[in-house]
């Protein structure tokens, strides 16, 4: 189904007019151990207002575990992950500050996409009108009233994104959001995220598709085997005469050998 996604990207909620470049989220010496395995090892980085940061690394590098700790789903073994200077769980209205998608299929298969959003809007005390606004934004269309089991992967990604955008958040945290989107959807997502950041929003987007990331992000944080091996603006990499791919291959292979 070749749906052209969406309206013009909306501006993010303007609850906190922080200056551009101010840290929105900080990850300090974050560590997570599962028994003997160190999944996340002393990770430190910050997200600055108005930027799109790419969080990249091989599968199993610790990206998702880091995001889970940032979102309060997992407890750090050491260190801390703060959003607006607080732990996620301590935010007053977390869904209005942060929109997040961790998995592309966190839906009940028999529940309609619209009901999925209605449930979340009720829980986060958002006006019911936000449900249809968010659905419009991702152009899910009449399918929103069908059970999610009938959705393609791309439609599930869009529904997840609609859930993240429900609260008009200041910060978007997206784990592999382009997975399963068709080229039109990928392009729409890229434009949406750029416009979101230009409007003062902040984005952290994980991916292993470097070509996609390179066109979307301002900065990259590269993680391998649980450790941050690069944290740089794309310009800085380009200044060294490196493409993102060059830098990524060099760094991850260097760290592996």
């Amino acid at each position, binding site marked *: 189904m070749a749906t052209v996604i969406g309206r013009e990207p909306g501006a993010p909620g303007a609850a906190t007019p922080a200056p551009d470049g101010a840290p929105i989220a900080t990850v300090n010496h974050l560590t997570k151990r599962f028994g003997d395995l160190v999944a996340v090892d002393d990770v430190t980085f910050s997200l600055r207002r108005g930027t799109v940061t790419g969080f990249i690394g091989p599968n199993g590098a610790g990206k998702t575990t880091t995001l*889970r700790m940032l*979102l*309060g*789903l*997992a*407890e750090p073994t050491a260190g801390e992950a703060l959003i607006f200077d607080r732990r*996620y*769980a301590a*935010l007053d209205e*977390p*869904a209005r500050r*942060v929109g*997040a998608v*961790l*998995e592309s*299929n*966190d*839906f*009940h*298969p*028999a*529940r*309609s996409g619209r*009901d*999925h959003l*209605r*449930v*979340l809007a*009720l*829980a*986060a*005390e958002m006006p019911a009108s936000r449900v249809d606004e968010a659905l419009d934004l991702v152009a899910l269309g009449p399918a929103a009233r069908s059970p999610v089991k009938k959705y393609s992967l791309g439609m599930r990604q869009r529904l997840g994104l609609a*859930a993240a955008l429900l609260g008009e958040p200041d910060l978007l945290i997206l784990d592999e959001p382009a997975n399963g989107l068709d080229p039109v959807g990928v392009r729409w997502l890229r434009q949406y995220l750029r416009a979101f950041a230009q409007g003062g929003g902040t984005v952290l987007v994980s991916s292993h598709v470097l070509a996609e990331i390179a066109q979307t992000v301002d900065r990259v944080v590269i993680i391998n085997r649980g450790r941050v091996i690069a944290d740089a603006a794309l310009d800085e990499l380009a200044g060294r005469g490196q493409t993102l791919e060059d830098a990524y291959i060099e760094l991850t292979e260097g760290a592996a050998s």
Partner: protein
Amino acid sequence: MRAQLAAELLKLRSTRTTAGLLASMLGLVVTAVVLHGYGLSATRLETPSDQLTFLVGWGEVLGAIFAGLAGAISFTGEVRHGTIRPTLLATPRRGRVVAAKCLAGALAGLVFGVVATSVAAVTGRITLAVRGFDVALDGGDYVLFIGGGAAAGALWAVIGVGVGAIVRNQVPTIVGLLAWLLFVEGVLGDNAPGLGRFAPGALGQSLSGLQPDTLLAPALGGLLLAVYATSAVAAGTVATVRRDVE
């Protein structure tokens, strides 16, 4: 908390799981009452106690089982389908999520209990009438039976939420609840009735006035069942707050 309760109630209404459980329960209640109404000899269906325990009592038993399953699935279903993540992102204070599930589950369980016992009562009367037996149960018996069934359903749904929150994995939770209620408690009741009457399934039955010679008085049974439910929820809350979500 009101927001989370509204969200939980919409979750119950927006899939067919709850309605499917209710329909399965009703089918089993009618089948069980009719089969026992025809299968049992006249001497086993004479006294009010016998008619409650051996005939219409299936309404309470099945109501409690399905209420427990509904409560458990309200938690384990979220783990199974991954909706636990968006749920906890919307409400990171996890204790509130468990509490809202208990309240929503208790309401659903109450409906399960009332429907199951009412249908069992009506089916029992019809079956007795068709066989030409006297109905020995009076209004007071029915009030206790249906009211107790409602309370047992509500409490069992809460137990289900607690057990689901502790176990998290859906299949072991359901198998465990069914094995306990349908097998372990039967063995206990047959071999060690003094102990078996303190088991949570038997306490639910005592609430409805079943086996009055063996089981505890309804009020005491209800109180102890509430203690079980509170303990299960307390443990489920601690487990949910302390453990990472995948």
